[in-house]
């Protein structure tokens, strides 16, 4: 929307409507002790005399069509110390290592033991689980539209919603699953200090599953204390603040995204969908984004419960996360043990990452035929049941 008074109507059509760059005004040098003689008294232009400088006129009230925002330094929220913000468009260069340094955590590959046993327990499964899941995949990829290749934005969200619906059907046998609710488009805001810099996680994350009861703690006290001996990985010469949005105008906000009297206060699982449009994330960077957002959610919850003072938590907070691009799933479980993130030493947080789990290999409408040999058949092929078992285990964790 071009503001009033800034449209180029009198120039050629290729410049029509464009907001061109403003030319810098002519530099007027001021010589101390010498006043320029201007034509202000004569009330008309006189060649040879200087251009007078009049005081700028203030309208007195704010008109939106002619509003010029103040410079950064004059804004009320301007601070000298910069703040580095991680938002949903951030694509960190160093990936998971940078996310671990920012959240002061230690990485463990693979899911924790409790979730693995939940996944393999046959009592926790839906009846004819493989068939129903394959039906759900076919529904979202093959039977949704008459196009040959439905766009990723379409089938990714459809598939995730269908899988969540399947998992929710287990409420019959697990009544505690009813105490959960999904929420989307909520804005998270959390601030913390790390070293001498200020960091924030802001913005809309994705789909969040909230529950009335908190998740049980995964790692025992010995494991937590043993993390205090492990050193954080640095990546000199790259600074940990690379690729984060640096700003001087900010507000140190702490907001879980929900009101204080919300009946489902504990964040359970965050579902991120990676559709590859803004911006396209490699799996390493998607995991980093997941880690940062789960950490943000956990820290916001900790600050709401225990206040803003940095300290080691007696009851660690656990938040899970699942990210998918329609076929590959990444699972992250984050346990927040301490909010004392200023120094590099001491107890650290724990992150379990299980990445690149394919749910199926191919789901094609038309078979891929090369040189009269069928390379990939039509329909769903290469289904992996373990991925959905892990998905279900993460869903049931805390209620089973």
């Amino acid at each position, binding site marked *: 929307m071009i503001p009033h008074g*800034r449209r180029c109507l009198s120039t050629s059509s290729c410049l029509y409507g464009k907001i061109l760059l403003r030319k810098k005004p002519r530099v007027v040098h001021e010589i101390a002790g010498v006043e320029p003689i201007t034509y202000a008294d004569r009330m008309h232009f006189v060649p040879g005399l200087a251009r007078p400088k009049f005081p700028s006129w203030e309208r007195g009230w704010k008109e939106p069509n002619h509003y010029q925002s103040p410079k950064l330094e004059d804004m009320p929220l301007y601070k000298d110390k910069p703040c580095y913000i991680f938002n949903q468009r951030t694509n960190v260069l160093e990936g998971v290592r940078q996310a671990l340094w920012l959240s002061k955590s230690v990485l463990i590959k693979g899911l924790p033991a409790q979730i693995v046993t939940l996944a393999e327990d046959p009592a926790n499964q839906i009846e004819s689980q493989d068939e129903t899941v394959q039906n759900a995949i076919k529904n979202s990829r093959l039977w949704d539209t008459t196009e040959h290749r439905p766009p990723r934005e379409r089938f990714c969200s459809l598939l995730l919603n269908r899988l969540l619906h399947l998992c929710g059907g287990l409420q019959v046998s697990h009544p505690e699953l009813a105490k959960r609710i999904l929420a989307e488009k909520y804005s998270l805001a959390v601030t913390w200090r790390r070293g001498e810099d200020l960091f924030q996680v802001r913005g809309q994350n994705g789909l969040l599953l909230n529950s009335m009861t908190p998740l049980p703690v995964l790692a025992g006290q010995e494991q937590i204390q043993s993390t205090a001996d492990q050193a954080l990985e640095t990546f000199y010469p790259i600074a940990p603040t690379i690729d*984060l949005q640096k700003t001087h105008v900010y507000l140190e906000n702490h907001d879980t995204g929900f009101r204080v009297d919300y009946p489902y206060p504990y964040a359970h699982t965050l579902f991120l969908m990676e559709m590859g449009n803004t911006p396209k994330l490699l799996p390493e960077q998607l995991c980093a984004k997941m880690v940062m957002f789960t950490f943000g959610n956990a820290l916001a919850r900790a600050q709401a419960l225990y206040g803003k003072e940095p300290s080691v938590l007696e009851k660690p907070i656990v938040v899970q996360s699942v990210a998918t691009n329609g076929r590959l799933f990444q699972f992250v479980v984050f346990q927040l043990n301490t909010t004392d993130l200023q120094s590099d030493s001491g107890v650290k947080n724990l992150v379990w990452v299980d990445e690149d789990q394919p749910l199926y290999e191919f789901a094609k409408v038309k078979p891929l035929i090369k040189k009269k040999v069928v390379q990939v058949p039509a329909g769903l092929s290469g289904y992996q049941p373990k991925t959905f078992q892990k998905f279900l285990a993460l869903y049931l964790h805390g209620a089973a």
Partner: protein
Amino acid sequence: MSVNLLSFALRSLSLGCRTVSSQIASLPAASGVSAALTGRRSFTTSACDLQNQSLWKQRDKYSVRPIGVKKTGGRDYTGRIITHRIGGGHKQRYRTIDFQRLRYEPGKEEQPIVEKVVEVRYDPCRSADIALVAGGSRKRWIVATENMEAGDTIRTSSAIGRMAVLAKEGDSHPLGALPVGTLVNNLELYPGKGAQYIRAAGTCGVLLRKVNGTAIVQLPSKHQIQVLETCMVTVGKVSNVDHNKRVIGKAGRNRWLGIRPSSGLWQRKGGWAGRKIRPLPPMKSFINLPSVSAKS
């Protein structure tokens, strides 16, 4: 009618009414662009064409993101062909290269810059390859040297000690700090201006000798130039060394590169044609004080 237009335009310059816009755009009404921006009407001239032609490359802030290029086809703002044999070719996006290696991050001046090479890739806008390097909390594109690979660490320092530094390929030092005989590229003529010489694929200059405060470098054309010893230079040969050995193969490949065919008219060759064997021109020296604009 032209007098009417002129008087109409100049009338808008009267002092009594527009005090806000007089602060903003102080240019006279002959330039149609800025006048129209502030809501004043005026007549069109070719000033807007001049500005629009290079608008795509006028950015204040450095960004690693590639920028769309507007092709000119060898034509200037009048529309006539100024340079022949340019036109067409594959679409290209320009990656802003930082030729000033010694650009400190705000807040970290006077420390040697250490950076890590993130990726080395092809650049459609030049013959050499470019490298994305990251150091501190900024990323930038530089011209890659011969054996640069992803994961390497490169240093840039402005210190000139009594002993010459052991030159490592890819590092950037002032000419006074390098031993005589090193192969160098991306040479600055004036300190702080940015590299202007020896940037093409596979080229390298040789540091011949150092003479009290200045250094003499031999360029790839065998010309010798004298520059101040504080000028920054990168060590090694520029990447893509086999660029001159490539075979175009067909006319179409030339067209993909944006090179149009030459005129087929037979023209008698004059004194400019043919190989010339003559002595080297005298050494050019660039050690007079640089102008104010070179520092910006």
